[in-house]
């Protein structure tokens, strides 16, 4: 009940948050801007250049979707960091925590509020992807839930990491660390493959950084070909469980750090 109350209040705050509104406006602008050349490509397509044009269209859809998906990760991190740091900075946390509310309940409410925002974003992402694919004359051949679940779990991970960092860092630093992590993650396979790095480092990098490529839709769906790779449900389950487990561990670490955090404005 108390966790739900905090979650809804957090979500309500997001709907009025200027940065979130700016984020969503950017999202809309990107989609609208990318629709313009997409429709242009479609208009000039004829029998002689159909294959070439279709390739360009699908390539553009992939770029848009990567951008929007990347935006989502940043949005998740920022929303989580700001929702926690903002409460502490403004002092609203004092009246809230004076209520019979445990610290973990407060943090869980905040995290759930972020997840509520991100589930809507994940649905919007799928909606935009479907719209663009339809405009490009393609359609997704996979079920809707996978297209929502994968980005959502990725966002859950970034939100949990940001929440953990926000218990000790300013939101700006949190975003910086998240950006650095997001840059490092694609390098993980290379680092772990290189024998010149010591074993402990390779193992640590592999264990500590989230393997978000495991949680990428690209593994089972290649949008440029709109073809569904054969992917058993157990693989979906394992990948999503890995992501949720990672998010849970980060969240529990955040709870642990937050338990001893000074809540006053300093």
């Amino acid at each position, binding site marked *: 009940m108390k966790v739900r109350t905090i979650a809804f209040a957090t979500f*309500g*705050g997001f709907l009025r948050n200027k940065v979130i509104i700016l984020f969503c406006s950017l999202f809309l602008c990107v989609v609208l801007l990318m629709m313009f050349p997409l429709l242009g490509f479609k208009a000039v397509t004829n029998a002689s250049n159909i294959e070439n044009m279709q390739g360009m269209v699908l390539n553009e859809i992939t770029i848009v979707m990567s951008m929007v998906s990347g935006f989502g990760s940043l949005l998740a991190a920022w929303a989580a960091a700001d929702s926690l740091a903002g409460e502490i900075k*403004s002092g609203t946390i004092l009246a809230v925590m004076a209520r*019979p509310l445990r610290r973990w309940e407060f943090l869980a409410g905040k995290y759930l509020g972020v997840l509520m925002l991100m589930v809507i974003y994940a649905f919007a992402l799928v909606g935009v992807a479907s719209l663009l694919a339809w405009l490009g004359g393609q359609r997704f051949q996979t079920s809707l839930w996978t297209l929502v679940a994968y980005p959502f779990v990725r966002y859950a991970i970034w939100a949990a990491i940001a929440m953990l960092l926000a218990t000790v860092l300013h939101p700006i630093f949190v975003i910086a660390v998240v950006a650095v992590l997001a840059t490092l993650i694609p390098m993980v396979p290379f680092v772990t493959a290189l024998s010149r790095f010591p074993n402990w480092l390779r193992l640590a990098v592999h264990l500590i950084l989230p393997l978000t490529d495991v949680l990428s839709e690209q593994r089972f769906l290649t949008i440029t070909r709109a073809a569904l790779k054969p992917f058993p449900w157990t693989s979906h389950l394992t990948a999503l469980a890995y992501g949720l487990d990672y998010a849970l561990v980060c969240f529990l670490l955040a709870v642990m750090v937050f338990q001893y955090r000074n809540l*006053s404005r300093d």
Partner: protein
Amino acid sequence: MPTPAIEFADVTKVYQRRFGAARVPALSDVSFEVARGEVCAFLGPNGAGKTTSISILMGFIYADRGQTRVLGYAPGDIRAKERIGFLPENFAFYRYLNAEKLLHFHLRLSGRQRANAGSLIAELLAKVKLDSYKRLKIGKYSRGMVQRLGIAQALLGDPELLVLDEPTSGLDPAGRKEVRDLISALRAEGKTVFLSSHILSEVEQICDRVIIIDRGRLVRAGALQQMLAEGDRVEIIVDRLPADLETAVKQHGASVEREPNRVRIHVDAAQKRVLADMLTAGGCNVISLMPMKSSLEEIFLKLVGGGAE
């Protein structure tokens, strides 16, 4: 015997700067108790450690050493928090909510969702005179209105202990009087009120006990009336004072104030016996000899050395 509402025993808190070795001591071995049913003022100049103490009491920060109990529980224990109403200094709210929604939010957090929540909230808003603004967004409230709303949320759930950090801050004289009346009414109901304030004249009117801290150390704690009566000057009233005796009296550091039918002589308590004997021997009729009451402000300034208050 019931446990005290608040117990501080040798509480020490040192703030450590994040990227440096500087350590700022905020509280040093502070010990005091607040009994149940008391209205107790917590005084000190700016930076004395009042807000730090209140933060420790509410479980927002942890003491480095010492023991703190609130209503018999450790700070932050939800069993204690269920029975505490708290008004922080410079209270901040979710600006997009209105007063009614904010109180509903706090009521849900207190786990006391009741069937009559609406009427309870309306009653509270009427009590702090915000009933006509209940649908106005808090972001549009004046400082005084926000403070009134803060008091309303502190009263939510009929708390046993009220911790009020600067409750009259931002209020006009009428609002301050209402808060004083409210605190008096709470005392009559047997509630414990622990408040910090810079307005000593108000504290003098409503409090039973006073705790004064300065630079993180407890400098004085005691019953207010006793503290006020412990002035170190006395007033001697005589029916007349001849001029030669007046000169002699003034040589003992006394001040003389002549009135139509009497003369008031103010002197240090240490000189009272000498002066009384002198006046009697000089043929004056000593009508009364009373200790002079100090004001809380005088006591406070004496104790904290005329600090920043």
